[in-house]
């Protein structure tokens, strides 16, 4: 007796095709993309009143020559104290919630997922970018700079290392973990909204002037959460 099976080409194709189908079926069952998006949307909406309740704090200033009146000119980075406290805590809580949710789903469905790399990466990105933002506020984000021929207000660079960018980077990791091209597309759209020049188009002297942009960022995440929930709904119904 031999342990070598009788195999023909048709059998091999069938086996490979079935293995691919099963792998895709498992990946579809494991996906719960809507939940992290919903958590981040809620946290972003919540940041609006929290940001409003915080108070502005001058982090660092830089001399920029002389003012028209003759006095010395300075530009300063003004940061909201609530942001430094709220976002690092909120993001870590978010990853704990996400990990707990995936664990609950794994128990309920009988199928674990590899969400741990996403949670670890998310916390690492949060710690890394928050530290970078704090450091940059004192050294880099003051005044105006010329970068690769672009003359930009250095404060605008905060958008590339702030909480929204942290969420975006971590979503790329989730897209990789869940092998979801749709999530890559959504994340690119989200980062575009976060970083695009029309961010600064709405300026207001109102203390709520920042709110429309934050609400827009949150709405993109919420729309994504609803879209993914609807797309994954039939599968949930089948699995239930």
């Amino acid at each position: 007796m031999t342990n070598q099976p009788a195999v023909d080409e048709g059998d091999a194709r069938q086996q490979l095709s079935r293995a691919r189908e099963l792998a895709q079926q498992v990946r579809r069952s494991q996906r719960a993309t809507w939940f992290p998006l919903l958590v981040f949307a809620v946290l972003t909406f919540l940041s609006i009143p929290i940001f409003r309740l915080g108070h502005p704090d001058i982090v660092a200033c830089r001399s920029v020559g002389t003012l028209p009146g003759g006095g010395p000119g300075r530009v300063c980075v003004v940061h909201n104290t609530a942001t430094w406290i709220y976002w690092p805590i909120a993001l870590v809580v978010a990853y704990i919630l996400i990990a707990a949710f995936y664990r609950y789903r794994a128990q309920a469905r009988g199928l674990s997922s590899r969400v741990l790399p996403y949670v670890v990466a998310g916390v690492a990105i949060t710690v890394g970018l928050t530290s970078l933002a704090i450091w940059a506020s004192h050294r880099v984000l003051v005044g105006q700079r010329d970068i690769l021929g672009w003359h930009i207000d250095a404060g605008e660079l905060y958008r590339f290392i702030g909480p929204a960018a942290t969420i975006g980077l971590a979503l790329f990791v989730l897209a990789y973990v869940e092998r979801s091209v749709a999530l890559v597309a959504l994340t690119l759209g989200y980062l575009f909204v976060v970083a695009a020049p029309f961010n600064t188009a709405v300026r207001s002297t109102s203390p709520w002037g920042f709110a429309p942009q934050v609400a827009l960022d949150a709405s993109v995440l919420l729309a994504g959460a609803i879209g993914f929930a609807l797309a994954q709904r039939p599968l949930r119904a089948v699995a239930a």
Partner: protein
Amino acid sequence: MTSHPVNGLDDVVHQRVRLGILTIAHEAKRVEFGYLRENLELTAGNLSQHLTVLENAGLVGIEKGYEGKRARTWVTLTKAGNTALRDEIAQLKRLIQQVDGRR
């Protein structure tokens, strides 16, 4: 001269249901007995037999426990199982390539 790809196939892995079990276990960190039974459309007895073959070959690990009063059996792919699955897929691809090359 390279050996024919069929020589690299092992019946323990190549069998349709067992290849399915290994594929699902490869995608998930852990998979529960019930999920395998439903998705592979098997009876509990039939699935148990295949799992025993795979466990005896050292390709999967089986962990039994309780969740509340409910008995649960979790299946994980071992390192040897991962290698065996990778080899099987590679051999199947080689076999198809060889046939396509002759046409």
